[in-house]
């Protein structure tokens, strides 16, 4: 017999009480934001694909099988094979890993670094703020392709460098939005109180200001997820992204899509559909989140 303390019992009760609330909340979300729910479902499927790729398909996404190249979709290869005989479905499933990795890491890194910098800029104000703003202006205005080229050329190609290249402009954008929200918070008396208490700048920025700009942060974050995936595809298209033989949707579209667009259309269509669906899912979900968190927040 297990005995529970009074507090534990209470917690248990609370848990039990909370459960229906959670599912109720989910239901509420689905009812009020059916598009958002659909988006979330797409994202979940993607995450599922990425995590369980090894179990979903038994083909090797990298190994060439020249005897079976350019096979049209059939029972074995449900989406056909590419010019190296690699199963297209397998590469799409594994490609979800690359897409999610690039999407989540660059969106999180971009939004979070932007959050800290934006809040800091608002908090310190004055010259630091002015200078920081100009730097962000430059980064925002700067063509992505040059940044990406410089990153890829100095660090080399590879998933991690693609992430770096995509993260940089995200930082600038997040910092901008966060800063404008944080400016209002700086004026609230409790920040002065925290300062009077002698808290360090770091502590005030991270503990007191950052949590209060969570709404714009989350909105920027979700909006960035889809964009990161699109950017990865565009960089791959220009030859600056992820490289063979790593399975990546953008890469699958780059050479094969155009070359075999007609003789083997399955190579061109499915990776494009995968990208579109993923970005679509993230955007629908992001929009719903935006509506819930702050219906008044502008698109930018």
């Amino acid at each position, binding site marked *: 017999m297990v005995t529970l303390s009074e507090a534990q019992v209470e917690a248990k009760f609370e848990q039990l009480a909370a459960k229906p609330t959670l599912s109720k909340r989910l239901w509420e979300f689905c009812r009020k934001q059916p*598009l958002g729910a659909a988006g979330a479902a797409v994202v979940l499927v993607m995450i599922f694909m990425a995590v369980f790729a090894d179990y979903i398909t038994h083909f090797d996404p990298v190994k060439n099988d020249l005897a079976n190249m350019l096979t049209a979709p059939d029972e074995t290869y449900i989406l056909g094979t590419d010019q190296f005989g690699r199963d297209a479905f397998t590469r799409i499933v594994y490609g979800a890993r690359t897409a999610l990795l690039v999407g989540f890491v660059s969106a999180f890194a971009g939004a979070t670094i932007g959050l800290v910098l934006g809040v800091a800029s608002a908090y310190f104000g004055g010259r630091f703020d002015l200078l920081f703003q*100009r730097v962000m202006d430059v980064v925002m205005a700067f*063509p992505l392709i040059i940044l990406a*080229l410089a990153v890829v050329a100095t660090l080399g190609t590879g998933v991690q460098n693609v992430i770096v290249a995509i993260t940089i402009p995200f930082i600038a954008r997040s910092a901008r939005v966060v800063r404008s929200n944080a400016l209002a918070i700086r004026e609230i008396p409790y920040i002065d109180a925290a300062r009077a208490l002698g808290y360090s700048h770091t502590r005030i920025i991270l503990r007191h200001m950052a949590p209060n700009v969570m709404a714009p942060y989350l909105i920027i974050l979700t909006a960035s997820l889809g964009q990161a995936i699109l950017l990865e*595809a565009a960089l791959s298209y*220009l030859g600056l992204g992820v490289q063979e033989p790593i399975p990546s949707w953008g890469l699958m*579209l780059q050479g094969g899509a155009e070359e075999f667009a007609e003789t083997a259309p399955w190579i061109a269509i499915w990776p494009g559909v995968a990208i579109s669906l993923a970005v679509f899912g993230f955007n629908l979900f992001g*929009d719903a989140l935006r509506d819930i968190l702050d219906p008044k927040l502008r*698109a930018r």
Partner: protein
Amino acid sequence: MYKYIAKRLMLMIPTLFGAAVLVFILLRMIPGDICEVRMAGSGMYFDQEAIDVCRENIGLNKPLPLQFIEFVGGYFTLDLGTSMWTEKPITHEIQLRFALSLQVAIMATIVAIAIAIPLGIISAVKQNTWIDYAVRVFSIAGIAMPSFWLGILIILGLLVYSQAWFGEPWMPPIVYVPPWEDPIGNLSQLIWPAVATGYRYSAVAARMTRSALLEVLREDYIRTARAKGLIEKVIINRHALKNAMLPVVTIIAIEFAFLIGGLVVTEQVFNLNGLGKLFVTSVGNQDYTMTQQLVMIVVLVFVLVNFAVDIFYAWLDPRIRYS
């Protein structure tokens, strides 16, 4: 107001200067050498001396500070220099391509507005009905599709269906003719990239139209109008729309600024000899002088549009001027 404008103008200078420094350094960080690309890139036999002479001729052997001074100094002497690839004046090269890029950008913006505003209005008026959902799905789909993929599908679709329906495969012209010389030829070439890009850019503007309109519809004076028994159409057209347009116009202006740089991929797919393609070519050739100027144009457009938006807001809302 003038003080505010002057202040904002002054703030543009560090941004532009920063961009100049950044592009100058970044380009030289990227490994590679235009003369190597030019001579060795074909796999053909070449003379090492030809590379050395080439480097000397286009000024790559000059010390870096001197190269930077020549780059920035050019803005004061109104001489943008010559392209390292063609050795022709950069102003000439840009002039050749500017009209095309501008035309596509304007056409794409028109397409975006034509799609976004009606859809945004419908979506707001029929909020949370299946019409709203359908419109939003349509508009988000535009932003979700990679633009080069959409471009490929458009061209392939044109080729395949024109052959199926008319017997002859048809594709848009691949050489630019100015609209005043051959308006039909011009339009039949540029309408496709304009639609592909415009559809994409309509998504953001449609969303903005919807939320701005929804916001306005919740305001008191609309309720008053409704209470007075005005019909919905009049309310939307006369009262709500006018007030909701401000953020929409802003977002379109900002999108337009991005568009100049955003045509890079579209111009590749449709073989348009515009600034975006020139940009990709110049970067690919390590043509420093040309790339620098093109980057500065993109930055300048961006900065100017932001400036215009800021001034516009300040004019509307005097509080901004004094903050």
